[in-house]
């Protein structure tokens, strides 16, 4: 274990495995082989006839060959393990629904222009979102490309708009705004009412 620590310190920071690309994993496997070899070497030294002071692991460092990982930064920028690219987004408003499907008018958030009308399956929405399904409910639908472990595939996501609450400050601000809006109204001009003119 000691030698392993020493090795870690000598070779720089480890990259967490879940963020490694395939290429980086290969490098990591090589490092593990190297670590094993060093371990064997340490064991060999510890069980040898060398004087005790020479058995100190710290002193072993000088006997070990230097191992350096290649610089990964440029490579890492190009090849990431995961990415998603939304290429089409809509805002939908549910116009009607039944037990298995719902109809929605879709506003194109990517290109603007004309609307679309679609019938979607309720099974395509998550169980939590199913509870939000009602006429007038707003959802966002996105379609795009997703890459995972080097595999690229198309992906569609539907997410219903969640609860938006107002805190007391925002409620206060809404109340104040009423007075501003109200100031723009004139008293009704009943002289203009035809019923009174007649």
């Amino acid at each position: 274990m000691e030698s392993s620590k020493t090795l870690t310190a000598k070779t720089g920071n480890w990259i967490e495995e879940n963020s490694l690309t395939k290429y980086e994993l290969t490098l990591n496997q090589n490092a593990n082989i190297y670590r094993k070899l060093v371990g064997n070497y340490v064991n060999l030294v510890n069980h040898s006839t060398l004087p005790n002071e020479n058995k100190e692991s710290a002193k072993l460092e000088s006997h070990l060959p230097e191992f350096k990982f290649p610089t990964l930064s440029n490579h890492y920028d190009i090849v990431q393990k995961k990415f998603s690219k939304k290429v089409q987004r809509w805002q939908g408003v549910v116009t009607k629904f039944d037990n298995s499907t719902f109809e929605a008018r879709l506003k194109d958030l990517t290109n603007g222009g004309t609307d679309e009308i679609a019938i979607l399956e309720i099974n395509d929405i998550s169980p939590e979102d199913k509870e939000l399904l009602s006429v007038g409910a707003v959802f966002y639908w996105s379609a795009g490309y997703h890459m995972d472990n080097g595999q690229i595939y198309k992906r569609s996501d539907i997410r219903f708009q969640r609860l938006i609450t107002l805190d007391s400050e925002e409620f206060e601000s809404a109340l104040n705004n009423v007075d501003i809006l109200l100031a723009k109204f004139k008293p009704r001009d009943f002289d203009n009412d035809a019923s009174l003119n007649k």
Partner: protein
Amino acid sequence: MITTPPLINEVEVTLIGTGGGYGESIIIKYGNDSWGIIDSCINPHTQSPLALEYLEGIKVDLKKINFILCTHWHNDHIRGLSILLKKCPNAEFCFARTTDLRKFLLMVSLDHQKAQKGSPSSTDEFKKCIDALNKSKFPNEVACDQVIDKLNESGIDFTIYSLSPSPKTCHDFNIEISELITDFGKRSTQIINKSPNNKSVALLFSFGEYRVLLGSDLEVGHDPNEGWLYILKNSKVLDKKRSSLFKLPHHGSANGYCIDIFNNLLTKDPVLKTTPFKTHDLPRKDMIKVYLNHSNNLFLTSYNEYNSKPKKRDKSLEKFIVKSVLSIEEIKFTHGIIRSRLDYTKTDSSWNIELFNAAIKVT
């Protein structure tokens, strides 16, 4: 581009309609050079109000727009209203009366506050309209039997009256607002008014011996205290003179049809015009037959046709989108203009109808 302005002695009633729920807008010219705009719709590609494109085309001085009226707060009648208000410096902003204005504005304000946090807003366009007003430009709430504008030119009275909403409708709307405010803490949905069509402002345009009836989306209903039933029984501004032009209510739907309107308020063979609503399949074929029994002059702003395809995108993405849903189709934007002009200085004039873009005469 439509460029010919009306003559000084002509009135004009022009319906611009898009079908597909993009909306409709009506432009009227009265007196020598006074104008009004009723409702607004936009070109989804340019986001510009179609009424503005038309008025600029025929070179109307926007200072001559006396009023902009919103008949009701449905998306197909309000898009671009605030742009119109900003562009027309002298226009009064008219909309259906509420019995408790403060409460209504509280709902608008709460909705706006929620919109700031990412919620979709249903009253945003209304808020923008109010924001566009200034000290010399007030909003005007209208209800049944009220004058929207009135002038006398060339010895002829021109008056635009509102025929609705009825007192009961205004009262019910007040209760509905209370419910909407109570519902405000709940999840994010667009505010869906229970029956906004009942709150629509129908209009009577009166000049000399002539009458024009603009039906908005006002439905007939079953309650004699609301809708067309209330107007037929209680209106104080309808006189014995019959209208020779009728903008059919609610896209020519059965809900907007009442035989008493034809029997009591319209001339024989009146000019009928309406905007189809593709997603709701309006007007239905059976209703077209009914209207053709009343008139040989039935006009639509466009055909009620479907595209049945999604919008054009990158092919592989389009394929994927089609696979992800049961069906998807583009709501195509086609707009048509039905223009009617009439010489108001003569007592025996008839309407001159001109059709532009996708507008059609139904036979």
